[in-house]
């Protein structure tokens, strides 16, 4: 063990340390299952991916989706629900102003995403190749503002991507007219960039079209026009005219038609279940598909997340077109089966399940709602008997979660 050994050792040691120093990865590591912003926004396909995400903002009954869009009726006096106190509080009169609102938060989250795409589109230099995705972003920005304006009136107008320090995060509210004008401007800009319904490839069914933009414009303009008219806040003419023009443009496109299959008395029912999918009457719909994108609405209705109130039941006209208060055809409230549902607008029986209605259980057998009145000795009979029906556009078969719900005999 002399110097030669130590020298050899020193060389080995140095070599090992050098290998250590060179062999290590540096500290600039990136993710393996996410894409960095810097490497994204380079091709039209990437813009399309970003646009696809906007569709989740379309109101659906997704549990946990945030907006719980379908339960919007709980904000009125035509429905009440047991899903949560926040849901039922509006209809039972105990609603207190909330510190936070998913409607508000989700709309501005959506607006940020559309603003981001629009900003990236300008920088990308991809020009007209991404027109369609820019059009979809414009549509969804308008759609998000439309959700806001309906609930809050004038809201702060955010048109750029903000940072925590941006002064715009403390923007004051714009007027309702300004928001409506902005919606219309976005939709006007979107229409020429979008395709017609008939131009959608089969695998594109469900995407935003010119028709959807026009329909939304017609609604927004009509809303503002009637608002001005009935709140005496100015001349409604311009808005009403804009609404009419948009609607006529939509009608003139001949892209859409009423759904008439299964006979007049049943078309309404079939429109909202599997058979009505992608019919000519559908302009834009939130889409579901078994095993891919599912919801839990059947279970939630079963659990009385949303229950129609008497007011809604009373609002259905009789067959003679008269309200029940004056129609001689109204048979009274004595019995749900034999009097109240008689001689009414057929949509009533297609929306509210009457006690005699049959429903299909998971294993294929049928059962009538009659059974469930007795099932809940503690609840008023109307609780279960007056459940909503026709819940879903597509059957939900998402495995054990759903199956468990069907055997959990909890009602009310």
């Amino acid at each position, binding site marked *: *063990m002399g*110097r030669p050994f*130590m*020298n050899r*050792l*020193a060389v080995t*040691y*140095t070599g090992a340390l050098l290998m*250590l120093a060179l062999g*290590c*990865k*540096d*500290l*600039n*590591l990136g993710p*393996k*299952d*996410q*894409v960095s*912003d810097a490497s994204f926004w380079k091709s039209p396909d990437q813009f399309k*991916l970003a646009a*696809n*995400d906007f*569709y*989740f903002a379309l109101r659906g009954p997704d549990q946990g989706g945030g907006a719980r869009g379908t339960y919007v009726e709980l904000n009125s006096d035509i429905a009440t629900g047991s899903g949560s106190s926040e849901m039922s509080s509006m209809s039972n009169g105990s609603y207190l102003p909330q510190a936070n609102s998913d409607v508000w*938060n989700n709309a*501005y*989250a959506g607006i*940020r995403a559309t*603003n981001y795409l629009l900003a990236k589109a300008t920088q990308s230099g991809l020009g007209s190749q991404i027109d369609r995705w820019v059009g979809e972003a414009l549509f969804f920005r308008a759609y998000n503002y439309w959700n806001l304006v309906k609930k809050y009136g004038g809201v*702060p107008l*955010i048109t750029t991507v*903000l940072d*925590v320090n*941006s002064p715009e995060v*403390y*923007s004051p509210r714009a007027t309702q007219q300004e928001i409506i004008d902005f919606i219309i401007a976005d939709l006007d800009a979107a229409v020429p960039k979008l395709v017609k319904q008939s131009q959608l*490839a*089969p*695998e594109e*069914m*469900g*995407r935003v079209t010119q028709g959807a933009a026009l329909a939304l414009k017609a609604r927004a303009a009509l809303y503002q026009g009637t608002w001005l008219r009935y709140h005496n806040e100015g001349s409604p003419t311009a808005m009403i005219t804009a609404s009419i023009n948009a609607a006529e443009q939509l009608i003139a496109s001949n892209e859409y038609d009423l759904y008439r299959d299964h006979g007049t008395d049943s078309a309404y029912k079939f429109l909202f279940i599997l058979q009505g999918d992608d019919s000519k009457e559908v302009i834009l719909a939130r*889409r*579901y*598909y*078994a095993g*891919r*994108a599912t919801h839990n609405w059947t279970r939630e209705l079963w659990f009385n997340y949303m229950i129609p109130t008497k007011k809604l039941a009373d609002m259905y006209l009789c067959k003679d077109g008269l309200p029940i208060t004056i129609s001689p055809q109204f048979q009274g409230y004595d019995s749900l089966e034999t009097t109240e549902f008689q001689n009414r607008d057929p949509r009533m029986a297609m929306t509210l399940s009457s006690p005699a209605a049959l429903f299909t259980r998971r294993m294929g057998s049928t059962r009538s709602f009659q*059974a469930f009145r*007795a*099932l809940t*000795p*503690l609840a008023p009979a109307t609780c279960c008997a007056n459940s909503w029906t026709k819940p879903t556009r597509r059957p939900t078969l998402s*495995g054990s979660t759903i*199956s468990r719900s069907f*055997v*959990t*005999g*909890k009602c009310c």
Partner: protein
Amino acid sequence: MNRLPSFLVMLALALALFPRTAAAQYGGDPSDSRAPRFLLAMAERRAPVPVDLKRSWVLRQPLSLALDGVTLKEALAEISRQARLNLVYADDDLPIAATVNLRADRITVAAALTDVLLDAGVDVVFTPDGRATLVKRPDGPAVQLGSIAGRVTATETGAPLPRAIVSVTGTRLTAETDTAGRYVIGSVPVGTHRVRARMLGYTPADTSVVVAEGQEAVVNFQLKAQAIELEAVVAVGYGEKRREDLTGAVGTVSSQALESRPITNTLSALQGALPGLIVQRSGGQPGVEDFDLNLRGVSSANGGNTPLVLIDGVPGNLDLLNPADIESITALKDAAASIYGARAADGALLVTTRRGTRTAPVFTYSNNTAVTKLTGMMDTPNNYQMAVMDNEANIHAGAAPMYTPDLLNRVRIGDPTPIPHPIYASSGWMLFFTNTDWRKALFEDGFEQKHTVSVSGGGDNSTYYVSAAYSDQNGVIRYANDNNRRYQLRLNYDYDFSRRVRLETRLGVENQDRSDIGGFTHGSWCSCPWVIVEGIFGMPNHPIYTESGQHFFAQGGWGNAVAQAKEAATATFVTRNVNTNFKLIVEPLDGLKLNLQSGIDYRTEDNTDIGKSFPYYQWNDSNIAYYSTNPDQNWVGRYNGTTVHRNYVGYAQFSRTFADRHAVELMGGVSHEDDDVDWFQAGRYNFPNQDVWGLNLGGTGNTWTGGGGSQWAIRSLFSRLSYGFNNKYLLDATLRYDGSSRFRPDKRWGLFPGVSLAWRISEEPFARRHLSTFDDLKLRVSYGETGNQEGINLYDYLQLITIGGRGPYPFGTGGQDQSAYLSGMVAKDRTWETIATTNVGWDATLLSSRLNVTFDYFVKRNKDMLVPINAPALLGATPPFANAGSLKAWGFETSVGWRGALRGLSYSARISLSDAQNKVVNYGGQDTYVLGYNYVRQGYPVNTYFGYVFDGLIRNQAELDAYKLLGGVPSDIGIGDARYKDLNGDGKISLYGDNPGQDGDVVNLGNLAPRYTYGLNLTLAWKRFDLGTFFQGVGKRTLFREGDYRMPWSDWWRQPPLFYYGQTWNEDRPNAPYPRLSHGDIRFWNYQPSSLQKVDAAYLRLKNLQVGFTLPERLIAKARMTHARVYFSGFDLWEKHSVKGGWDPESIANGFNYPFQRLYSFGMDITF
């Protein structure tokens, strides 16, 4: 040798301090006849003894000499001048005129004298008066030599003590004992010597011996076990220290704490073993105990809160390490952990595995066989009790009782004939009168076994330790394969290439094969197989089997737990772990050590879950009521994940003592650590055959795939300076500089300093005079900073885009279009949280080392905790957390140990007690809270429970009328319902204050943190018998009943906990403590979070009881055994607490966990 890598800054510094020629200084063999010998003349000895050159300060002094052709006399004069050495010699004895050439810088006195006196035929003899005399070397051997040999055994047991150190006082003659306790010290100068034997954990002994020329003197030692098993050498970060030199709050656990316990997991052995270390488990399922490790309480609201675990210096996982392979565990609790920087926010646990000794092979075999039995689980009522409670709940809700007197009577007698259900007959339901004890049907006694074989030994240049272990735990669910098998292999091999070069290798292979109930594993609201939930809530009136013996479909939503356990396929969860750890240690100079270490862990997880389809039947006929999974939707899911964790460390240590009293140690180095994870999963539905579940056999129509991965790295520079003056005043200063991949480059690096000071009072002269009862007394104080990066995602500083995160959107006819969205806002300014720990403590050993006491008090401050920022929702995204908050934690640890002997009985006791509290000082001003548990609320400890103050029950109409006047009280409230206090007197029961700053009527009722955790260890040994008990407990703990423990009849289809039976208000129980039963909504009022739910959950648990017997040597000698012990060892045998309703002290608050078990085991340890 000449040019060592210069990028090791500390190494270069060390080299600069040390002459490069120094390596040759002690190279000479003392018996080499050419060189002078350095001897020490002592008055009482006839012959001088050799001087220990390493310890002689005089001879180690550095000199600078430039002797070119001078005479020897001049040379000696120059050396003695520079060394201030009184050198005496007779001119006749030396060739004084001989010419000498020596040119050297920083050469030691010894080396210089050796050089100039080479071949002079003289020895250097130091005399007691301080002179060094050059004497002519006598003819023949200068010193007459003999030897000393003997055996070292333990006083109490007579067992041999291997690795004890025997030394001749005043010389450097030492020897280590072999496995039989034998030692031999050769070349001992003739004369009377003092011989001393010492060993870790034993009181040293010394005795005098006369050594005659050429003779072997026999000296046997019997060592008494010391008060406390104190490891003499304790691992600290990048090095080790003698216990008396420690300056920080450092706790150790020796292998004894882990021995002979019926455990397969190291973590369960650590419960209560170290003051300040809290180990909690969330379930009793083999392999899924979900141990939570925590040192000194919470330090961040953002996670982490777990000490960094290093196994032989490499970050690792204790979960799969064989407890039998562990030599010791050290916990660094205060500034001592700062050496580990950014990942040591909650201290560090340093685990050292066993290594061999230089002896002939020693074989050991140990086994352990255990039967396991359930401890507490939530008690549920039988059919009759449930029927009574159901009637009450109906009556109180204004409905007719379902069980008429006739039906109730049928329940009481257990009429085997069911009737159509009075209410749900139309659904095909039946009402049964028999009683099913699901608990009994579902659970059985479990069984465990463990075998460990090891061989250790070594030769001249190497030592080895090889072990293999197998353990098999069978869970307690009857019929099901809820088993866990482990196979562990370890090879620890050390090789000395030379006296200065050593290679240490550690190789561990760990394999865990766990099985579980396929398709029902780990429900989302229970960290246990789903059948546990079904087993607890299986309705006592549902039969297991139908009339014709098929599995009954448990109506009302519950599955049939027995059917699930029996019919389901077995899911498998396989974890394989290969740990390699190589360390090269080079000692180019005495006192300088270079260490190069690489540790690579490779871990794979390979899981298969199977959703088999099997039928349940209805009672009256054998029609299938329902399938567990649709026959065409049976499925298999596979998951495969790989983690590679690499760690490279290089560091240098330099230690030197100056002027015999300044002990200096410098350490510095670099490390790089990275972690790389990749996983993928795939699954298919629709398997035509339910016997074989290969993924390829499934249908191709509906499949799923997924994948992902992550990576992170951390690179560090670290150093430590230790300084000790006279062994009395000790200082440790550490500095670590960490760079982490989780931060933006300019926020990446952080500096973590630590300083600790200790004063060994017992070394002071006044203490020796006045505090002689203290063998050792030390005061310590420290301040150190560590980091926490756990609450931070891996790439927060990059704007990322998530693809496919929301699932596909079905454009067209069921298209599966992916989508992309921004994954949250970028956190540009974020960096780690810094936790500053201040610690004050003292250690004392007294009464002849029989009593040992330590105490520590600490305060931890998280100075820049990540907290949410408030920003208006207009931002459109959640703003990233910023380093703007703070959290404070404080507490103490103490332990007292005693060891004594009484005639043939030796005994010991050790009690440890610790406490930790915390408070979220600043959480960015956010002050929202909810009823019940709140993880974070500013101004409160984490996990604080808020609730109403229960004010008794409404017992009569007057009380009801008065209470109804308050606002916020439900309109259907009645006699027998709960009252809560209107604390703020606003005439309203309200959750939140109506005015800003008011808290409404909800107050802080306590928090989850266990307080005053303690451990009590008692041992007794008498002749061949030994007894050990270990108690563990929590002195103060508040539990709030949660989930289904909280409320009887939380739903009408869920049976109430038995605990409430006869305990709720009813007309005939007007003084019952709990509100009345009801199926109505009033139950949510009565049993909402309030002080009614508060339960004192302090407990004391007998964790381990061992009774052992060591077989007599004469019996086992025939079988060539040297040691054999048989024992009974029990685990979790007994507990005391005051929680009612069937509850295990360690169970989670909502009552759902895989039940814990008591273990009754027998085992043996054999050494060949």
